């Protein structure tokens, strides 16, 4: 199906090869997971398979790459896409038409399928991706997960022999991501001949799907090509050395120093496998402790307990009975309904919930970017409405999801220095602090670059740096872990701890369940403009049903932790 021989790619005007000397072949029915650290050329390889490289993006190719005997150098995307279907990361920019059925028809029209045949194909495709009821719906009314399912349906209707997916769940909440993984498994069971090549970071969901794993290193070389069972089992250490994500089971085994095993049949729930792992450590106290520490949640009581009698300081942020609705919207329903919420100094609180539940609105209200119709927002006890804009931006910071929105200067250094200048630091201090901050976030060597020329992960870290450099009372992050590889993520998480230690109140809007589990002191689940559930992660994750309504699924680490502690309670009650 795919035949790569010493395949290499170098983009026009770039000194280095993105991919070099890639050789592999892929047969019908194989399900392959392509892994590699950021910038290792995963997307380039996928785009080459469909001819976007070199036909739409100019590049110099070496060796050969062919799909079903068609050499990609000589075949246009138009020809190749009759055999290869490609699903990209962002659902919105893949949808061309305005309604669901038109969207499916679009691909069929491009293939020149006679209109009489289209109805049946559209029906089948929608049925297969579970969107049968939405045939005439407008595309912009669908949720992110439904859009992505629609894209997959539209591709399936074209009956490709190879399905290529480039991080299809990156923009989705955990529940929608799980639905995509179930859908892919279902599809591969129905179409046994269909080969799937997938790039994905959510390995807990996607690893069980894979029959085979390919690993690219940071120089764009193929360094590992093994059955999934081996790659995530005995060779998991190699994967970890290359800074790629691992399924929690494999990562946990590596952590505990026991040989990882990976033989979960596709579709099996992760908790069972982790239960087994926990059980295997029954007799091995030191390893069990080590693992327990690894999957420990954040301490729910941040900072030092206040000595008896001393006055507890008031919350840094408090929202009191906020009701807010947007003017000129078709639905008169308020986005936030009589919502109250507070955040203490040094506290890391996660705000989770489905898209449209009001998370961003809540954050924008807390920053004073939108004024609520009723209720008030207090920053350290002062009504936000009475604090001048300039002072507000000194006290409270917001790291936006799209880092580019926040860039206001032309260099990485200036971007961070800008914040300090606002706070009227001396020139010497500005230089010193900026350099230290850039260094901590691994951006030191990029100080002179234009912010827009950085990679996505670097941009995110830069926007975080520009907010963290000054000591603020309140910092809000919108999806901070999105698009970060394990190493960069570790840096970011350490910075969160640092912030908490500096007594900054931190609010994180996130879908990242692992982040919530390992860092948040408290989680608030927002459903339909009200806080449906609030408490430490251990308590909130126990309410699976309610979580599920909010599109959330407890992370495997939570299950592992539960399995480990349950045993400890049974065997030796309360060792502390």
């Amino acid at each position, binding site marked *: 199906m795919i035949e790569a021989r010493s395949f290499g790619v170098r983009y026009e005007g770039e000194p280095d090869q993105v991919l070099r000397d890639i050789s592999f072949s892929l047969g019908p029915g194989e399900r392959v997971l392509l892994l590699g650290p950021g910038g290792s050329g995963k997307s380039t390889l996928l785009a080459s398979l469909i001819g976007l490289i070199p036909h739409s993006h100019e590049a110099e190719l070496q060796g050969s790459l062919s799909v079903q005997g068609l050499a990609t150098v000589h075949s246009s995307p*138009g020809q190749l896409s009759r055999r290869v279907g490609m699903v990209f990361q962002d659902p919105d920019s893949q949808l*061309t038409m305005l309604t669901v059925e038109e969207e499916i*028809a679009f691909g069929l*029209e491009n293939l020149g399928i006679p209109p009489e045949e289209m109805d049946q194909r559209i029906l089948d495709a929608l049925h297969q991706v579970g969107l049968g009821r939405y045939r005439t719906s407008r595309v912009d009314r669908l949720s992110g997960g439904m859009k992505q399912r629609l894209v997959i349906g539209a591709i399936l209707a074209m009956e490709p022999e190879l399905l290529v997916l480039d991080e299809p769940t990156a923009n989705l909440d955990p529940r929608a991501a799980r639905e995509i993984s179930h859908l892919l498994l279902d599809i591969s069971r129905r179409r046994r001949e269909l080969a799937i090549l997938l790039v994905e970071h959510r390995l807990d969901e996607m690893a069980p799907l894979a029959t085979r794993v390919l690993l690219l290193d940071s120089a764009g070389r193929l360094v590992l090509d093994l059955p999934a069972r081996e790659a995530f089992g005995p060779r998991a250490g190699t994967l970890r050395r290359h800074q790629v994500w691992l399924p929690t089971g494999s990562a946990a085994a590596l952590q505990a120093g026991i040989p990882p095993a990976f033989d979960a049949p596709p579709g099996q729930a992760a908790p069972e496998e982790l239960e087994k792992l926990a059980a295997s450590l029954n007799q091995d106290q030191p390893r069990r402790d080590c693992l327990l520490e690894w999957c420990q949640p954040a301490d729910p009581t941040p900072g030092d307990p206040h000595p008896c009698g001393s006055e507890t300081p008031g919350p840094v942020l408090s929202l009191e009975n906020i009701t807010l609705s947007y003017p000129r919207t078709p639905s008169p329903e308020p986005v936030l309904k009589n919502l109250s919420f507070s955040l203490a100094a040094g506290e890391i609180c996660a705000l989770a919930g489905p898209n449209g539940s009001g998370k961003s609105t809540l954050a924008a209200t807390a*920053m004073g970017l939108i004024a609520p119709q009723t209720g008030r927002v207090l920053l350290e006890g002062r009504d936000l409405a009475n604090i001048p804009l300039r002072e507000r931006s000194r006290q409270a910071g*917001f790291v936006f999801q799209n880092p580019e*929105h926040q860039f206001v200067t032309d260099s990485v250094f200036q971007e961070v220095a800008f914040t300090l200048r606002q706070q009227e630091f001396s020139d010497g201090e500005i230089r010193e602090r900026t350099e230290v901050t850039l260094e901590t976030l691994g951006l030191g060597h990029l100080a002179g670059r234009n912010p827009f020329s950085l990679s996505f992960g670097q941009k995110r870290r830069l926007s975080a740096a520009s907010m963290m450099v000054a000591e603020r009372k309140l910092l809000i992050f919108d999806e901070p872990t999105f698009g970060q590889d394990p190493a960069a993520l570790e840096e970011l998480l350490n910075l969160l701890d640092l912030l908490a230690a500096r007594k900054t109140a931190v609010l994180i809007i996130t879908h990242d369940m692992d982040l919530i589990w390992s860092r948040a002191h408290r989680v608030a689940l927002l459903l339909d403009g009200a806080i449906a559930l609030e408490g430490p992660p251990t308590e909130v994750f126990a309410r699976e049903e309610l979580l599920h309504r909010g599109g959330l699924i407890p992370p495997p680490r939570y299950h592992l932790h539960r399995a480990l502690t349950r045993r400890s309670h049974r065997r030796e009650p309360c060792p502390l």
Partner: protein
Amino acid sequence: MNHALFEYYQERSPLHHLNPAVKLISSLVVMIFTSLIFDPFTLAAITLFGLALTLGPGRVPPTLVLRGLIPFLLFGAGFFWMNALMPRVTSGAGTGEELLFSLGPLGFHRTGVINGVSFGIRSLGFGVYSLLFVATTNPTDFILSLVHQVRLPPRLAYSALAAYRYLPTLHSEITMIRNAHQVRGTREGSGPGGFFRKSYRFTIPLLVSGLRRAGRVADAMEARAFTGRNRSWYRQTRIGFRDLLYVVALASGVVLITLYSHHRGTLIFWGGQLWN
């Protein structure tokens, strides 16, 4: 969330089923025709005729019509004031003109007021006939009909559709950039310098994300075999009997109104006004 004042209203009315290209061209013809008429009575009658079509066979709710017409009302009011206060410019007559009434230092002359009223009503008429088209036309059908009836190349047509889909995103993106800059505490200062700096800061991220999105959309379309050639069409927009019927009805309505106005002696047809 949709902030558009002027948008497609999903319905299944007789006007919704017409061929979009036919509807667009006939609306344009009526608008050109009203540009040649200079008396308030005829213009008002033609405007009301269009309004009746939109509300009746078009089944567009009155509130939506009213919302869509707000900019045209403001526009019309502006035109009225301009013309009413400057009779000389518009009428070419001038001195010895009958003064209708005065408001402090402002004098309202007969020709000026008449011209002002007709300008105002004409702009409203433009609004009504544009709304008639926009509110009853599914954007996809419109694009399809441009391809099928007006022979627009599919590549251009689908780019237009992609751009149309991007508009709401653009709106929310601008809001987000404004918020993000406000959070960073930017101060551009007032005056042209500040305006320039602000525009610069807004343009770069918008341009970058716009280009990136355009690239992604193009990639995704190509990946779905879009070449613009050898396509089949799931739905074919055609010109049918009802389109003919509509054109005849619209034309006879407008002509009858004009003839009646002529009969009454109210019609002022173009006689070189605004020409020199």
